[in-house]
């Protein structure tokens, strides 16, 4: 990978963020016991990890790296870092501790991680510590900013990116049309890593200068191209060009995200397809494995693995998914209409009860609704069930149709 091959070995060899680099360099040059840790904040691909690695190399430190894919609970952090701090001086090793993606400390998976990290940073005053974060917002960052020397990094200006791209192309002995070079630079949005990946894939695929390199095929067109692809490579290509992504349900699964979730798009297309059960089972099983994989990658934040997902999905569902077409509804029509109708009746009933009892709809659903089916269910065996239902209905100003609706929807009718 060009990204690794051309990762600058020293801090001078990087491009962009000169002031931030000088600041980081100054911090380590003048570092002494008790100094604050360095906190690098900036968007992906601006060189935070490279700075840590280059500084460690240049000043003869052994880099001890802990990134987001490691579990960072209180116990784990103490288990990993404490011995390091206690023994740092025993063997005369100079250690630089690098904590990557500290903004991603997760409340559930990394429980106690923040407080443990803050207390370890106090103890770690005998070794230099560099932390890196993509985002500046949130409680974790607020606390970390207080105890660190903050250096902010920004996206690399396009001209400097072009300068670096030309250097890499020259070193590789590869060529790209000027149009492609400009478009790669523009599309990577100041992210060197993304620029090199894009350039390498363009050079590797031999894509012509006229072909658009934008990853912006609308999700419906991309999924349809995937289903219509003649071979696996074409299908992988269709998925990789899709404007959608793989979302992480943990961090909010709203309708906007679902709309551009590639996995949901494939799922909704499969369940709406007129295919036999065995084929559907195979397809859904393959998708569910991919879903588990994506969730694990998201949870452990192993973003580098996400690039294999398109290929994994394609290889697992390619044969069974030929001839399908895109559908955006994640529930088959016969089920969704039933759910919609029942939901409408239930909402009407909740509204009626809420208005009659001067209660909020939330309270009606939480405290009153559970008794309605019980009342209806108990009375349904007796001869007076219908008159009881009418009386209940009158009491709550609910019509008979609505009562029947709720009884039916709760399978008591």
């Amino acid at each position, binding site marked *: 990978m060009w990204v690794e091959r051309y990762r600058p070995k020293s801090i001078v060899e990087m491009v962009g963020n000169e002031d931030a680099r000088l600041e980081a360099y100054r911090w380590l*040059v003048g570092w*002494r016991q008790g100094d604050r840790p360095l906190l690098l904040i900036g968007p992906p691909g601006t060189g935070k990890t490279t700075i840590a690695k280059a500084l460690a190399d240049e000043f003869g430190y052994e880099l001890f790296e802990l990134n987001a894919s490691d579990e960072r609970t209180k116990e784990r952090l103490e288990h990993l870092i404490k011995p390091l701090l206690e023994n740092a001086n025993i063997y005369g090793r100079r250690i630089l501790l690098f904590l990557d993606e500290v903004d991603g400390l997760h409340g559930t998976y990394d429980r106690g991680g923040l407080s443990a990290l803050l207390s370890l940073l106090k103890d770690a005053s005998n070794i230099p510590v560099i932390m890196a974060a993509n985002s500046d917002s949130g409680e974790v960052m607020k606390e970390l900013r207080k105890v660190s020397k903050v250096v902010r990094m*920004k996206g690399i200006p396009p001209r*400097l990116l072009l300068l670096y791209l030309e250097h890499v192309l020259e070193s590789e002995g590869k060529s790209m049309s000027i149009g492609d070079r*400009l478009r790669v630079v523009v599309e990577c949005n100041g992210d060197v890593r993304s620029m090199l990946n894009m350039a390498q894939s363009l050079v590797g695929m031999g894509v012509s200068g006229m072909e658009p390199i934008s990853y912006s095929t609308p999700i419906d067109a991309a999924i349809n191209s995937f289903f219509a692809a003649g071979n696996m490579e074409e299908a992988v290509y269709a998925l990789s060009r899709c404007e959608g992504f793989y979302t992480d349900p943990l961090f909010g699964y709203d309708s906007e995200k679902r709309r551009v979730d590639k996995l949901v798009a494939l799922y909704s297309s499969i369940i709406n397809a007129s295919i036999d059960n065995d084929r559907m089972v195979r397809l859904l099983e393959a998708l569910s494995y991919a879903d588990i994989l994506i969730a694990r990658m998201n949870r452990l934040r192993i973003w580098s693995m996400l690039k294999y997902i398109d290929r994994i999905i394609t290889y697992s569902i390619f044969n069974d998914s030929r001839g399908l077409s895109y559908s955006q509804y994640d529930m088959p029509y016969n089920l969704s209409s039933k759910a919609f109708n029942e939901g409408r009746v239930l909402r009407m009933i909740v509204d009626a009860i809420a208005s009659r009892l001067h209660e909020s709809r939330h309270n009606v659903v939480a405290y009153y609704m559970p008794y309605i089916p019980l009342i209806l269910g108990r009375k349904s065996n007796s001869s007076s069930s219908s008159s009881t239902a009418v009386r209940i209905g009158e009491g709550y100003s609910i019509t008979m149709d609505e009562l029947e609706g709720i009884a039916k929807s709760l399978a008591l009718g």
Partner: protein
Amino acid sequence: MIRLSINKDFTLPMLGKDVFVRLMRSGVEYDKVSRRFRIKEGADVASILAILKEAVREEISIELPCMICGNDAGCSECEFSSNCDRTSVASRCICKQCIKGGYYGYIEHLIPLFNAVKSEGGEVKQERRRKGGRER
């Protein structure tokens, strides 16, 4: 159109106390003697731009300095001018003349800067040692 250069002094018309305070809070410095403004390193350029746009009701263009020669990088004539959000990229770029020196020309210019920091740091450390500070 008002052209603001990052890391260079500039003047502004009288904008009132409120705007002045907001600009100072966003990372603009004011030199009372020369009566000129300067955007501090690492300042939130986007919010400075928003404050100024609201106050002067004029188009404002940001000009990045060239890392090598220190002159304006020529953002208004740059081939990327419509795609480069100068409020969110790093505060230095490279001008059309200096880019001709290529990648090695660029890093050659940086080497003395880093070396200066290194020797400066060494002196600071020696000073600290003399004062009896703890040192690894």
